[in-house]
């Protein structure tokens, strides 16, 4: 364990954890959009910037990536930090002016309007969906395509993916609800910002509800080696 100071408060944290994790553990709020505890830190949204005292100067670091160390002195808010966060939110607000989650976070961080020309996106490219699909689900059905300003989230060649299992983790993890999914009858629809896919659902033997995409079930059976019969019933109808 190491002891560090966050906003004047002495807190303890395991070695190897990040400032963001240590802060959240201690109920100290640091805004962030691209962080999720289930995937590797990424450092793309830059909202979690904090100040670390370093060689007599205040150095700005991404708290989702910076590991704690004994005696570290951290400020999670200052005029400089606030200005940076505001500019990032202005940029995001211009990119996704109609996104509720971004509007809310912008307001919370003190940004009422943006100085830039408005675009009309929902996705702000935090890549959480892509990382969850790769690191947690393990199929890498979606990825980021193109570089820089042309960057987008999509399936390869914008075509229906033959490896996507329709699990919907991408939609679940999206912090700004840019990916949506819905189950209608025996079909699941996943809507990504640039394309969409449909998946056939399996029926529960007992209640008759459609409960899981067939592709997802195939994937689970392949990974767990359980018999298909183990999934005859939906979780609600199991003993």
């Amino acid at each position, binding site marked *: 364990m190491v002891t560090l100071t966050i906003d004047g408060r002495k807190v303890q944290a395991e070695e190897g954890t990040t400032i963001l994790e240590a802060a959240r553990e201690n109920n100290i709020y640091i805004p962030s959009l691209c962080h999720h505890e289930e995937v590797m830190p*990424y*450092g*793309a*949204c*830059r909202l979690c*910037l904090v100040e670390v005292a370093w060689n007599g100067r205040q150095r*700005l*670091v*991404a708290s989702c*990536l*910076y*590991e704690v160390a004994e005696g570290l002195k951290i400020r999670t808010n200052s005029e*400089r930090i606030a*200005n*940076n966060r505001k*500019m*990032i939110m202005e*940029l*995001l607000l*211009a*990119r996704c002016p109609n996104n509720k989650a971004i509007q809310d976070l912008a307001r919370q961080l003190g940004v009422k309007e943006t*100085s*830039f*020309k408005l675009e009309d996106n929902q996705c*702000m*490219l935090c*890549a959480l969906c892509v990382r969850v699909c790769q690191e947690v689900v393990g199929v890498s059905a979606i990825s*980021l395509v*193109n*570089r*820089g*300003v*042309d*960057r987008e989230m999509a399936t390869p060649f914008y075509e229906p993916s033959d490896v996507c299992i329709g699990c919907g983790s991408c939609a679940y993890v999206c912090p700004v609800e840019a990916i949506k999914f819905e189950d209608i009858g025996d079909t699941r629809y996943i809507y990504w910002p640039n394309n969409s896919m449909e998946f056939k659902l399996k029926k529960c033997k007992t209640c008759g509800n459609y409960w899981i995409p067939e592709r997802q079930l195939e994937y689970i059976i392949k990974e767990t080696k359980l018999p298909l019969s183990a999934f005859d019933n939906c979780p609600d109808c199991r003993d």
Partner: protein
Amino acid sequence: MAKRKTNRINSPQELEAIRESIIKSRDPSQTCIVVCGGTGCLALGAQDVIAGFRRKIQEGGLEKKLALRITGCPGFCEKGPLVVIKPENILYQQVRGEDVAEIVSETVKGNIVDRLLYTDPDTGKKITYESEVPFYKKQKRLLLGDNSNIDPTEIRDYLALGGYAALSKALFKMSPEKIIKEVKKSGLRGRGGGGFPAGVKWESCRRAEGDTKYVICNAEEGDPGAFVDRNLLEGNPHSVLEGMIIGAYAIGAHQGYVYIRNEYRLALEHLTQAIKQAEEYGFLGENILGSGFDFTVKISRGGGAYVCGESTALMASLEGKVGEPRAKYIHTVERGLWEQPTNLNNVETWANIPLIINSGANWYSTIGSEGSKGTKIFSLSGKINNTGLVEVPMGITLREIIYDIGGGIPEDRKFKAAQTGGPGGGCIPESLLNLPVDFDELTKVGSVMGSGSMIVMDETTCMVDMARYFINFLERESCGKCIPCREGLKRMSQILTDITEGKGKDGDIGLLERLSAALIDSSLCALGSTAPNPVLTTIRYFRDEYEAHIRDRRCPAGVCKLDAVIRK
């Protein structure tokens, strides 16, 4: 059975013996026609000249009288194709295929072809010898000076000039610690742009925990207007390899990589050949020179992404991943390529190492300025008379580079600014012409050393348009991972484009400054955090030009087309 015929050198003694035999086999008084086969001269038609010389020498049966050597770039690209007659060092400039016959016939007679000599623009007099040309006079060509004596595809040329003596010294007379101490003492700072002390980096990497360590040579030179590393690899690839082997030995690495732009065809070709020859002679591979030290070098070709010049993006790309940077809170010397301690230096940094080992840190540190030791190569381009590659001691003034070496501005127009350090650098105005050029002084005025590109601008350059060009370049080259860089550069580019099209608004300058502050503070890597430099320096030194565009809808340099808006 084939006869045992191997060039492999197994000891320092064998190296010196081979060196001596190479030198003995050559007649220093033999006339040698040296043709620059560097990219610049090739573009200007050197291929014709080379073919012409080959043919003429063969037709005339002059092989014994005239040697022919195709070399890397001696630097004076403006006047290419360049031909130098050795050993006198007579310089012929702008040589065409049709000049070859005369050069051959006159050289055989011991005469000089006056009409092909360089004319001093100040005195109007012809200058015969290379060293007397003003372009070369103020240079200190420690790295480039040997270029005209080396056929880069021929390791024996490098050996004849003392090549790999530094490696031999390092392996047999110095401990790794002693080498690191020497490099630290020399004051050598990284030539890739950051200027971090090379010896300190080596020491950290040597001390880092890990059995497997790597060294990397960064040859992903992507800055517009930069051709320093390109020419070093084209002209003297063994000097870079020698530096890498010494570094690997000092650090404790057995595998090295050169990450090089695939666009650098000639550099790639020469480097590939140099690695092959170095392996053949036992400078690379197992048990180098019989020392017991093993080291191999592989080439990895970049796919054209500027951001892959950033060290962590480069390493990701080398690993076969998408070339995107990561945070460097844990330094790459601790956890770099494949999570192992990795020491990355730029081409020019590596090329300096043999010099330091051969002649010592004491000698090296006498060259340059207080905080920046040695020489620096600049690629001089833009509105300048002598476009080319110049090597100068650190601390030389900008004025000396631009006027004494560069020959000033064409058509006697007025110098306006010099952009150093590529797109992430800044522009330096006329009022700072007496600035000593080194790492710290450039940073003080808002620019950076960067890779050594120096783009000169005159009164016909619009500074807002210049900033727009660089921001547009960076916007295109941003990897797009972090929000401030991707979205911020897009907005900067839009604002600057608007200003140059007469659609600028009051408050645009302030907004650019606010955006700049956020990019500097919050970008993930140096591409984003240095990107505002061209904007901030042009605002700092040429604010009136911005204001003229925005308020008066006028481009003082007459570059931007704003009149359509005025008519409305």
